[in-house]
């Protein structure tokens, strides 16, 4: 095993390399596609904070993603707020919703936690279906792209891309800082052995709730940004399929790894892009990926690479 310090430094070096690549990526790749990947990567990173570091499987994260998308869409389009205020409003509402949903869901463990979050998300879905401000089946369309901070024009996709990249980097660093803090160490202790963490005197429920709220808030940030990028907030964003999609991204990339969710989001979004013409088969293929990953490589892409790397360095030592 490597020392924790070197792992931390290596992670940051990889992140710096990824950011450098991301800075020049719009020269080669369509910026709207890149923005979609970044939004979903942030979504998956926030989801991974729960499943990977606290061991809580939330099957209802669409409620934060889609809820924040509706809020930011509404305040920007109807109330005429600026984009940065729209994203802040979406994030704040997702955090509040996370506080409410989290305090209910952490009352049950394991498999029940997943079912409770799924059911609560379905409740939010029906609320969004019926509430007048979400415009039902149409969703909130044509959300304007106003200048950010009143200065920078966002109507150009490339300019917007760098804003989204900044938001993504902020979210990544918040999560990275969290998992390497003393708070994050307690979270991992809860994941490994909850009764022991309790017996050591930690108020496990408070730690879980705080992690849940943080995850919900960052998910909301991703959803709010996505709504402004695509100028659309719709029922797709709050539906249970969206909750399943983020589980799939994280699982494919590697649960509990730092970069897995980013890779997973990239893989799944790319796949959806190429398979868009196949209609219903996308669902079948996504299901098949679930089955293959669960049966054959549960560690995900990044997890398997890490395991391979560790085996190799152990053999050499």
């Amino acid at each position: 095993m490597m020392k924790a310090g070197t792992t931390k430094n290596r992670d940051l070096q990889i992140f710096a390399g990824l950011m450098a690549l991301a800075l020049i990526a719009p020269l080669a790749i369509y910026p709207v596609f890149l923005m979609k990947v970044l939004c979903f990567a942030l979504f998956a990173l926030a989801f991974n904070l729960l499943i990977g570091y606290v061991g809580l499987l939330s099957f209802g994260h669409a409620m934060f993603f889609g809820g924040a998308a509706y809020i930011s869409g509404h305040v920007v389009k109807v109330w005429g707020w600026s984009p940065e205020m729209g994203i802040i409003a979406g994030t704040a509402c997702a955090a509040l919703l996370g506080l409410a949903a989290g305090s209910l869901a952490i009352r049950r463990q394991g498999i029940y936690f997943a079912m409770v979050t799924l059911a609560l998300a379905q409740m939010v879905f029906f609320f969004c279906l019926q509430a007048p401000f979400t415009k039902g089946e149409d969703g909130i369309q044509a959300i304007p792209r106003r200048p950010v901070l009143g200065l920078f024009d966002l109507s150009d996709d490339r300019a917007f891309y760098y804003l989204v990249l900044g938001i993504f980097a902020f979210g990544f660093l918040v999560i990275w800082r969290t998992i390497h803090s003393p708070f994050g160490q307690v979270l991992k202790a809860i994941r490994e052995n909850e009764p022991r963490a309790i017996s050591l005197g930690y108020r496990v429920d408070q730690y879980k709730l705080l992690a849940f709220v943080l995850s919900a808030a960052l998910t909301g940030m991703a959803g709010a940004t996505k709504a402004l990028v695509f100028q659309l907030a719709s029922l797709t964003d709050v539906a249970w399929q969206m909750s399943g999609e983020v589980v799939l991204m994280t699982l494919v990339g590697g649960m509990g790894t730092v970069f897995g969710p980013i890779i997973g989001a990239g893989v799944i979004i790319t796949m959806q892009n190429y398979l868009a013409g196949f209609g219903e088969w996308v669902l079948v293929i996504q299901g098949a990926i679930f089955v293959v990953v669960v049966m054959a490589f549960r560690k995900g892409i990044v997890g398997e690479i890490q395991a391979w790397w560790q085996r190799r360095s152990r053999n050499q030592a």
Partner: protein
Amino acid sequence: MFELLGIAPQALFGQLLLGLINGAFYAMLSLGLAVIFGLLNVINFTHGAQYMMGAFVAWMLLEWVGVPYWGALVLVPIIVGAFGVLLEKVFLKRLYHLDHLYGLLLTFGLALMIEGVFRKQFGSSGLPYANPLPGGTRLDFMFLPNYRAWVVVASLVICFGTWFLIERTKLGSYLRAAVERPDLVQAFGINVPRMITLTYGFGVGLAALAGVLAAPIYSVNPLMGSNLIIIVFAVVVIGGMGSIMGAIVTGFGLGVIEGLTKVFYPEASNTVIFIIMAIVLMLKPAGLFGTPK
């Protein structure tokens, strides 16, 4: 005609009957989930898809082979149950030693695949299934369609039959023993792995049977399962999966409450079960019939 709180009795009893029927499906599905979870420790996310398959296989038997409803009632649970046995042998068996969440993820993936295939094949608008018991009885306070009365009676028989099988027969006692201590039961010479496989097949067959019962009421639709399974999960959280009778009572009870909500406050009828779930989690986190663990 008398009126109750400004609601015509026709509407009230009509919705009550509808609620009772929805409740019958909640009860049958949560029963199967509970039986499977008890022995396999897997939350069967495919349950909704298997219910949908039950309705579709009944439709195919009728349209393609000419097997009538009453034949389908027997054949469909066997066919879909056999499919369940296959899934258990190929996939689920290899996951028992892992965290529960992998079972959930696997069955979620299988549910997506099954739903996707049926949507590809049959579209998502739904197919009609002829009512095998047309007509009805005119009671003083409402009109009672024969088929709906049959569904309520049949589901009660199925639920209590399952309860009797598990709680009052020798086979059921083996099953309950294997839930507690599979290793000991195995040591007494009972083939526990086969019992697990057959239990999964039984639970899946139960879902398929519910699907056949549902076919003439709701149209046969690839989406019928995923819409229902999330509500059934909430029902399971409310009732707790520890008790068979608890699953039955919670299922029927919530169906009736949902029906009443449709009469008195229709806006909340979609969400009332989730709201009840939230309240139960606040007051009795282990569920109404669950034991804290």
